[in-house]
């Protein structure tokens, strides 16, 4: 692929507020991401500040973030995992989930816990709205930047 084309794609990504862009052209494909995708799959910590606002949400304001065309189901605000870890939907086994689909949540409400190195990180809603999708499975691994919830502001 032409290097100028790649440069153009990078600029496009910068302008768009997207986290990641993948283009396939014949047998060639290129994926450009704002995050370090060249890290080994289990690399512990991204270089970003720990609780930095997920880059994909742009200003994290009420303006609906641009949605990748490949993911038509994502019509709301995506809450992304700030870290690699294990996803828990409830404070402890046998207790009710933090939230369920259809719940109205305030910004700052706890949505789930991501555990890494035996540290339980409460993940809070960064916008207020209705929980329309819960995308991760209880007890399953999640990756950095993976979408956990979709909230309709």
């Amino acid at each position, binding site marked *: 692929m032409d290097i100028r084309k790649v440069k153009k794609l990078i600029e496009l990504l910068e302008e768009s507020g997207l986290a990641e862009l993948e283009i396939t052209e014949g047998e060639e494909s290129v994926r450009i991401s704002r995050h370090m995708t060249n890290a*080994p799959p*289990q*690399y*512990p*910590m991204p270089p970003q*500040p*720990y*609780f*930095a*606002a997920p880059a994909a949400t742009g200003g*994290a304001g009420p303006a609906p973030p641009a949605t990748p065309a490949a993911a038509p189901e994502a019509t709301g605000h995506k809450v992304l995992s700030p*870290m*690699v*870890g*294990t996803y828990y939907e409830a*404070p*402890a*086994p*046998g207790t009710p989930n933090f939230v369920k689909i259809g719940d109205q949540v305030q910004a*700052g409400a*706890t949505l789930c816990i991501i*555990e*890494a*190195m*035996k*540290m*339980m*990180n*409460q993940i*809070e809603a*960064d916008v207020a709205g209705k929980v329309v999708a819960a995308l991760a499975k209880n*007890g*399953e*691994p999640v990756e950095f930047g993976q979408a956990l919830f979709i909230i309709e502001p």
Partner: protein
Amino acid sequence: MAPSALAWPAVLDLLADGQWHSGSALGEALAVSRAAIWKQVRALRSLGLEVLAERRRGYRLDRPLDLLNPVRIRDELTPVTRAGMQLLEVLLVTPSTNARLAAEPAPPPGQIRAVAAEYQTGGRGRRGRRWLSPPGHGVCLSVAWSFESAPRDLPALSLVAGVAVIGALQQLGVGGVQLKWPNDVMAAGGKVGGILVDVSGESGGPLRAVVGIGLNVRPVPGIATALLLEGGHLPAVALDDLLPGAGLDRSVLVGALINRLHECLVGFGDRGWPDVLPVWRQNDYLAGRSVVVTRGADTLSGIARGIADDGALLVEADGRIFPIVAGDVTLRAPL
């Protein structure tokens, strides 16, 4: 009766000496009916305490209990830590000392809130396993601390807490304690305790961390079997098993733990994790051992090769080193 609904049964303070007390004497001392005494005794039994009852003699515990004492805990605190204590609470029963602190407002930066309990009804171990320890036998301690912003090495906080535990135990003469990545406290081939850290905070804002520590102090008959059955694969070891002579004073232990945690939390906020990384490495239980890492449906078998500068466990497999940040690590059974 649900233990979570219990206030500290006053009768426990009287029975703690391990001597016989008649029901009427207890009732008189506490100004309650004998039926009320009986109810409190039943409550104590529901916590796993052995209360003997005989018609002529009354009640006694099967052995004297040294209960956590807030005054003695406070006496152990260094002047610096004492000055920073916003709360020191000692409870008989609570669902979880971590949950109790997490439900309260975060302490102001520089201040520390601590809750110790004799018994947790909802203590969490690995994968939600219960932490089983009747009153008078273990230590359940949680400490809340606020960072003005998230420390860069935040994920290493469980490891930092482990270093604090090692320091407190060394101070009390308990040696040979090691840390199993990320949060188990090990000695004599078994598990002495564990650490669980809860963290919450807003993006870019202040961050509240609650560090919970559970330690076996007095041996509990049958608990090793119970733990093995729960799938921990590691026998439970009590700190008293490691010490000749009289057992540890648990109040002194709690005081020492608070001091060391305070010191480590301040250092972690100011200087980060490199401060204590060498101590962690010196006490690495897994280094050189064959391990299996399980994360969801994935497993990785290899040799533990210490920890990376950011606290990730390094596992060597197929000639490569894999940094591990999430998952359960078990020792591979010898073939």
